[in-house]
């Protein structure tokens, strides 16, 4: 029986305070004390931690996370919105659908299939994929192509540390990721009329995949990934639009030729391969020069100027030197 985190009002949430004190909460839960032992405890992220259905090996690994210099110190988007406002069409196309309809999804046990131009290929249990790797907390900005953004405290490992285990060959130019195909647990995959084809596919250039910023996330807000956020593992590529950050990854393959991504196939004029956040290149139907940082309030949508590469230009601009980004969008 799965327990669900309680949804609380905005007023009761103090995400930074809870999150920064999470180690105390976890120690307390290990000692059998409840969240109520701490005054001023907001329960949303906290409940998430205490009712985390992830296996013990994962919770242990997440508890040992360390901070990262890549984290931003901008205000966090509250847990209730990070886990309640999602684009994950496999569970439905409304923003509230993934939380509503994702409850029947079972992310454990999970295995990842690695194939293609690499020395080591095969099917590996998630525990083995992550074994011995140090989990880091990375607070990243996530910018959706729809011109809204969030700041999310992810827990994960650099993608490069995972990929290195499989020793990709020199002829591997791209890495292809595929979301699980499980229509019996993902109602959006069995809908009659679909905007996109399943399974969802995303592709990174090998240098993008191996970049220190690219994260394979396995948790957020101190707990394992909720189903609606892409359990049990997903990419976070913070300098690209959010649709590149593929969720619930089942397959990874190293290839020479670049296949088209799902959104390239659905609408090549609007969604390109690189999808780098770029205020100077509008989406054909709307401008990308600004974004709404969520949560906004009714009379103040919290509009901020969009930064080149989502503010990660120092770290990634060199990957695209000489590339005309208005053509290669």
């Amino acid at each position: 029986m799965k327990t669900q985190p309680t949804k609380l009002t905005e007023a009761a949430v103090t995400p930074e305070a809870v999150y920064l004190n999470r180690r105390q909460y976890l120690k307390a839960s290990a000692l059998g004390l409840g969240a109520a032992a701490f005054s001023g405890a907001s329960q949303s992220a906290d409940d998430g931690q205490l009712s985390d259905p992830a296996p013990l090996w994962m919770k242990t690994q997440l508890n040992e996370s360390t901070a990262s210099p890549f984290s931003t110190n901008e205000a966090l988007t509250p847990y209730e919105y990070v886990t309640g406002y999602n684009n994950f069409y496999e569970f439905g196309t409304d923003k509230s659908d993934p939380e509503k309809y994702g409850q029947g999804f079972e992310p454990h046990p999970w295995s990842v299939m690695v194939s293609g131009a690499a020395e080591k290929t095969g099917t590996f249990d998630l525990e083995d994929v992550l074994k011995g790797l140090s989990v880091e907390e990375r607070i990243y900005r996530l910018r959706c192509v729809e011109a809204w953004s969030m700041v999310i405290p992810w827990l994960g490992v650099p993608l490069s540390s995972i990929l290195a285990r499989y020793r990709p060959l020199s002829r591997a130019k791209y890495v292809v990721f595929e979301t699980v195909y499980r229509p019996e647990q993902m109602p959006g995959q069995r809908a009659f009329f679909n905007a996109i084809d399943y399974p969802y596919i995303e592709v990174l250039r090998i240098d993008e995949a191996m970049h220190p910023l690219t994260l394979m996330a396995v948790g957020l807000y101190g707990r394992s990934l909720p189903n609606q956020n892409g359990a049990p593992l997903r990419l976070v590529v913070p300098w690209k639009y959010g649709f590149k950050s593929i969720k619930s990854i089942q397959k990874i393959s190293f290839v020479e030729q670049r296949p088209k991504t799902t959104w390239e196939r659905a609408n090549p004029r609007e969604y390109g391969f690189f999808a780098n956040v770029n205020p100077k290149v509008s989406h054909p139907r709307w401008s990308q020069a600004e974004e709404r940082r969520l949560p906004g309030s009714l009379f103040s949508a919290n509009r901020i100027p969009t930064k080149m590469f989502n503010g990660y230009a120092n770290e990634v601009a060199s990957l695209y030197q000489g590339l005309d980004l208005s053509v290669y969008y």
Partner: protein
Amino acid sequence: MRYFLASKGFWLVLGAPLYYVLYQIGQVLWVRPGALGPDPAQALVTLLGEIALWMLILVLSVTPLRKVFQFLRLHGQRRAMGIACFGYALLHWLAYAALLLEWQWATLGDDLLKRPYISVGFLAGLILLAMAATSNDWSTRRLSRRWRQLHRWGYLAAALVILHVFWIARSNFLEIVIYALIVAGLLVVRWPWFIQKIKMIKDV
């Protein structure tokens, strides 16, 4: 003006969506800031747009209901429904201009000229404005024949609205196809040839 006064109860019905919107706004402001989600401005704009679209569908159904089912009761309420439709479309635009764009005229102009979905939406709005402004006895008297001609532009407005909704869609295409079919159906059904055919089927 007698139609206005005669349908006070009807205004209650037409205003129901507005009461719902005001209730949601009240929730967001004083009870639960997350009532409309983390992007309440966007949610409100979308909500008002959906209401306006349903009002349009309602107005367009009056004549088909009369011609196909001999349902006459709504005919006198057409004026009120048309004005309500324009009212919600206006609120939709105001919410977008005030809450999403915060009255940045440069961006408003930019959007209007460069984003086709906004241009067609605005055009539809202008047509509805002209129709709402002439929805009174004085206008029907002054314009006589031309009044009918002007109000036929409502069909174009309906088509532009479907285009507007289609062009903003990213994922909910099924919903939009259904809207398009409903609107198309309501327009086709006015065609005399079509009405004859339906009557023939019914009389059999």
